Structure formats: C-alpha cells, structure tokens
C-alpha cells in the first residue's frame, strides 16, 4: 500500500541576518507516523518546525500539505497544531478554557465544546483539574494541558518542540509512554523535535538526524543506529569507536594495522574510509586469541555491563562487556565481520579522535559560555 504523503518540504532555505540556518531541507512526512527531528541545539530544528507551522517564511523552497502548496498560508489557516517548548499556556484562562480555546475561536456550540474538552482531559489524565488555574500546575501537568489544547482542533499533524525538555528524568519516561499512547489513540501524525538521541530512538517510527541546518540521515531508528551514513551520525547516535581505515577490496578492510573481513563492498580499491564499531559489538578474549591486543586503561561498572577503555595502537577503544576485566591487564579483542560499519570519508571525518560519545554536557557548557558572552 502506498503511504499517503501529508507534509512535504522542498528545498527549504532560511537565513537570519546573513547567517544560514537551514540550507536546502527536503523532507517527506507520511500520514500516521511518528517522526523525530534529532540534532544538537542550534541546528535548526525549531526553525524547521516553525516553517511547517507558518510562523516563519522560508527564503527559498516550499511547504506542501496534502499535495497543496501552503507556503504562503498564515498559521491560522493550516491544519497543524503546535505544542510549544515552554508550553505557552494562556495565563488568564483556567485549564478548561485553555483547552477549549481552539473550539471557541471556531465558534462551536457550547455542548460540543464541553464534550470535547472532557474527552481531551481524559486523554491526558487531567479530568479533575478543569477548574484549576494553569499557573498553579506542575511542569508535567502544564505539558499535558498544552498537548490537549493542541489536539482539540483535531489537526492532521501535531508539532512538538522538545516537549519534555523541562521535565525531570522520571517524568520524562512516563510522558514518553503517554505520548506514544496518545498518538496511537488519535492516529495523528507527530513531528517531534528533540536533542536527546535515546528519546528519538525509543519513540519514533522514523528519525531525521540534523546538523548545522542540513539533514544528515533519515531512517528507522534501528537503521540509523546500525548503518550510520557518516561519522557525525555514528557519533551522535549512541557510542562508537570511529577509526580511519582503508578498504583494500570488497569485504576486506584494513585498520589498526590488521586486515579484517567485513560485509561491506562497493568501494574503490584502497579507498580511505571511516569505520565505526559499536562498543557492544567488540568481544573480549584472551590475548593470544585476539585479532588485536591492547592494554586496559580504565574500567567502569555501569550496572548491566562494564565499560572498559583499551588502548590499541595509540587509539583508545571503548568496549562494553559483561565480564570483569582487571585494569592494566592485556586483553585481546574479537570482532565479527558484520560489526564493521564502513562509511565514505565526509566532512566529519577525523573530528572524532579515540572513542566518542556525544556529550550533552559539553553542549550545555558551551551554550552557557555563549550566553555569558552575550550578556556582556
């Protein structure tokens, strides 16, 4: 069955004051799917969402809805609704009136409004809160009101901009489940924005990985994890060892001074490549049985597994194993052929020395610095 294309972005470009924020974004979104836009902060996720909602106009390119060009349509004429990052609830209205807002604007009969609001309150588990003032609600409750308010107009597409960003971890997990349920019950297409890769992988049918105003990869979570197209995606999604290698011939890759069998082909002979090996795909064996040997420099107990750092040929590998390994011991490693992910060199090659894991803390730190600089 051919899936119905509900939103289509074609060649969207957007700049602010000469600074390119989105360059040539093209994207198809289908009916009844949960799509996540994933990328570090500042990569243009919110801007893309605002262009779909109609709050921003692209400098170039078009937005299609149900096959019709809606690029010039104002927000109030689009069949999409938004859940804002900071909720943006109307502070002068109570929970009931906030949710009823869309129907009141549409001048629906009072009876229908009451029925619909009640149904929405049930959907987001806030039935006893209708008289409450929104400023007296907790973050999680405000979030639910925002979702109910956006859903009551029965939009074809719901846009959610980091809706769980301000909630603590426990609440976030609960809300993720609820969002999934709500989507199943309503059958509305969700376009979800987050910088949290775990959230993206666990929630979505499809993930769009973005960086610096460009789409890096689009695909099912499992494909993005297993077959990253370049070093950037490999680094951003999960943890990975990214090494320089050479593709000797089909099914033969050479790295760390050793030639391995792999399952990749279609490269030129002796083409330099990036090779990604996930930490959980590396087996620890006795030194004499290993394909490579190295010195364990660090061991961290993570609960389910140990995370060990092994130095092999001046490159620090991260390996996850369930067996204990002593620090400062020599070990061998064994890697199955299908654990090598060979990628063409890209602009992101060589950015990632040693093992790498995308660090959200780093991003926060650098953001803080920016803000301080701005305040000056």
């Amino acid at each position: 069955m051919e899936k119905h294309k509900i939103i289509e972005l074609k060649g969207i470009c957007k700049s602010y004051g000469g600074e390119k924020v989105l360059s040539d974004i093209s994207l198809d979104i289908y009916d009844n799917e949960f799509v996540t836009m994933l990328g570090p902060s500042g990569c243009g996720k919110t801007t893309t969402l605002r262009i779909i909602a109609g709050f921003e106009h692209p400098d170039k390119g078009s937005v299609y809805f149900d096959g019709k060009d809606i690029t010039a349509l104002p927000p109030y004429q689009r069949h999409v609704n938004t859940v804002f990052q900071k909720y943006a609830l109307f502070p002068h209205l109570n929970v009931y009136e906030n949710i009823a807002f869309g129907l009141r604007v549409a001048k629906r009969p009072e009876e229908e409004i009451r029925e619909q609001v009640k149904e929405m309150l049930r959907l987001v588990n806030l039935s006893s809160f209708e008289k409450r003032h929104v400023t007296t609600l907790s973050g999680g409750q405000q979030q639910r009101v925002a979702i109910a308010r956006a859903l009551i107009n029965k939009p074809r597409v719901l846009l959610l901009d980091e809706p769980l960003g301000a909630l603590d971890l426990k609440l976030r997990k609960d809300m993720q489940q609820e969002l999934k349920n709500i989507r199943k019950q309503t059958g509305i297409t969700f376009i979800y924005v987050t910088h949290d890769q775990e959230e993206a992988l666990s929630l979505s049918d499809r993930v769009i990985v973005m960086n610096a105003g460009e789409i890096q990869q689009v695909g099912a979570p499992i494909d993005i994890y297993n077959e990253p197209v370049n070093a950037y995606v490999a680094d951003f999604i999960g943890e990975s060892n990214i090494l320089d290698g050479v593709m000797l011939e089909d099914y033969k890759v050479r790295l760390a001074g050793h030639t391995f069998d792999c399952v990749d082909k279609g490269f030129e002979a002796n083409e330099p490549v990036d090779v990604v090996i996930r930490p959980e795909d590396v087996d620890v064996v006795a030194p004499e049985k290993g394909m490579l040997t190295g010195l364990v420099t660090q061991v961290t107990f993570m609960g389910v597994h140990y995370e060990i750092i092994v130095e092999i040929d001046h490159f620090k590998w991260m390996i996850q194993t369930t067996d204990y390994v002593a620090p400062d011991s020599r070990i061998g490693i064994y890697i199955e052929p299908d654990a090598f992910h060979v990628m063409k060199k890209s602009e992101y090659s060589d950015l990632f020395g040693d093992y790498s894991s995308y660090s959200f803390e780093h991003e926060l730190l650098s953001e803080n610095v920016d803000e301080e600089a701005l305040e000056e």
Partner: protein
Amino acid sequence: MKKVFSKVYLGLIFLFLYAPLIVMVLISFNSGDSTTQIEGFSLKWYREIFRDHGTLQAFRNTLVLSVLAAVLATVIGTLAAVGIHKMRSKRLRSAVMTVTNIPMMNPDIVTGISLMLLFVFAARMLNLETTLSFYTLLIAHITFCLPYVILNVLPKLRQMDKNLPEAAQDLGCTPLQSFFKVELPFIMPSVWTAMIMAFTLSFDDFVISNFTSGSSYETLTIHIYSMIKKSVKPNIYSLSTIVFFAVLVLLIVYNFTDSADDRRERAIERANLRRERRLRKERGELVEE
C-alpha cells in the same frame, strides 16, 4: 555622632516635606478668617466650598477632562506600546522611545508653552476664531500622559512569552483576534495602572492646563490659582486639602495595582535607555542635547 546627624537630617527633610501640608490641613479647619491664626475647629470653609458654584463647576470640569484624557491616553498609549513592541529594528525602537520620553523629561512650563504656541499656530493656519478651548486642553493632557502610559504598558508586553500570540494563531485566531483574546488580557493589569496614573497626572496638573485652556474652561487647579489672586482665605486651604487627599488615594490605588515585578521591569527599561544613549554618545552618534 554620625547616627545623630543622619537622624537630624532625616527629621529636617520630613519637616520641609510635610510641614506645609500639615499647616494646610490644619488651617482648612479654622473657624476664623485668618490663615495665620487658628481660632477653633469648624467645617465652615468646606461647607462654603460645596456651596460655591464656581468651585463645583471647576470640579466637574476637571473630572470630565481627566476621565476623557485618561481613557484616550490609555487607548492611544497602549496601541503605541504594542506597535513599539512589534518593531523589529532595535535602532528605530530606541529612537521612538527617546522621542516618547522627551515630554516626560521636559519641565511642564516648556511643554505648556510649546503646546500653546502650536495651538495658536494651528488655529491661524485653519482660520479658527477661538484658539484655546476644552479641546486644546484635552489634547495637551493626552500628550503629557502618553509617555507614562507607554512606559507602563511596554514592560508588561516584554514579559509576555512571545509564543503566546503564536499559540493563539496556531489555534485559529487571526492576528487581531489574538490581540483581543490573548495579548490584551495579559497586559490588562498594567493598562489599568496606566489609566490611574494618567488620571492622576491630568487631575493635578496646573502649569500645562494654565497655558492651554483659554478662559472658557476652568479646571480645579486653575480655579484655586484664581482664588489666590482675589483673596487668601482658608477656603483655598480646604479645597487644596480635598485635592491633596484625592490624589493621595489615587496614588495608593496605583501602588496596589502596580506590582513590584512591573516596577522592576520599568526600572530596567529606563536603565537600558540611559545606557543606550550613553553608548551612542560615546560613539559620537549623538551630540549632547
């Protein structure tokens, strides 16, 4: 020693600030005709005021003028604040704000005379017979109330999450509907405060009214001034006492409606304006005014 000194200093300040008011209130209850010797307590001067047609007419005039000026200044000022808030260019915005603030910094007498000259000029241009009237007075009052209204409403607009009007439009409002359904309710508290402020300013203004009212429309303050020119009797004191307490009540109401948050915002606003002007001066873009 230092402590004693600062206490004396404080005492002197209070003395100079409040002594005239206390004397005014005391003498307003004097039973005699003198404004220097208190002979006994009576309400006769108050009674006289409430029997005097001239005074009552002036009071009615002032009420009509102040209510109209406050309402109109609030409507125009709020719209202006919304416009300024929506301006994208920072330079244009600060330029408009500076222009708005000038009448506030000006001495009343300068504002009064320049408005009067403008009205005279305009009347000549249009060949009107009467130059100064109720309408020129009203225009003058709206003019000097406007900056206060704008400065009251603008910080509240800044406090508003910019996603709020967007959320309204997202849910189907046109920009105009969004203004009335979401933005206006949000800024309404500071709109009320602005209106009380404008009413107070208009109610107790003398200098600007004196220059722009002509002879046909007498306000309370102008009436008091004309009474002084005739003869100084305690009835002036009792009328002034009434005006004083009316303004005092208004100020108290204003302070109740004006939240601490808004006051802080306004202080920041003014500090920003000053800093911007200083920076521009340093860059040599602004010649000393």
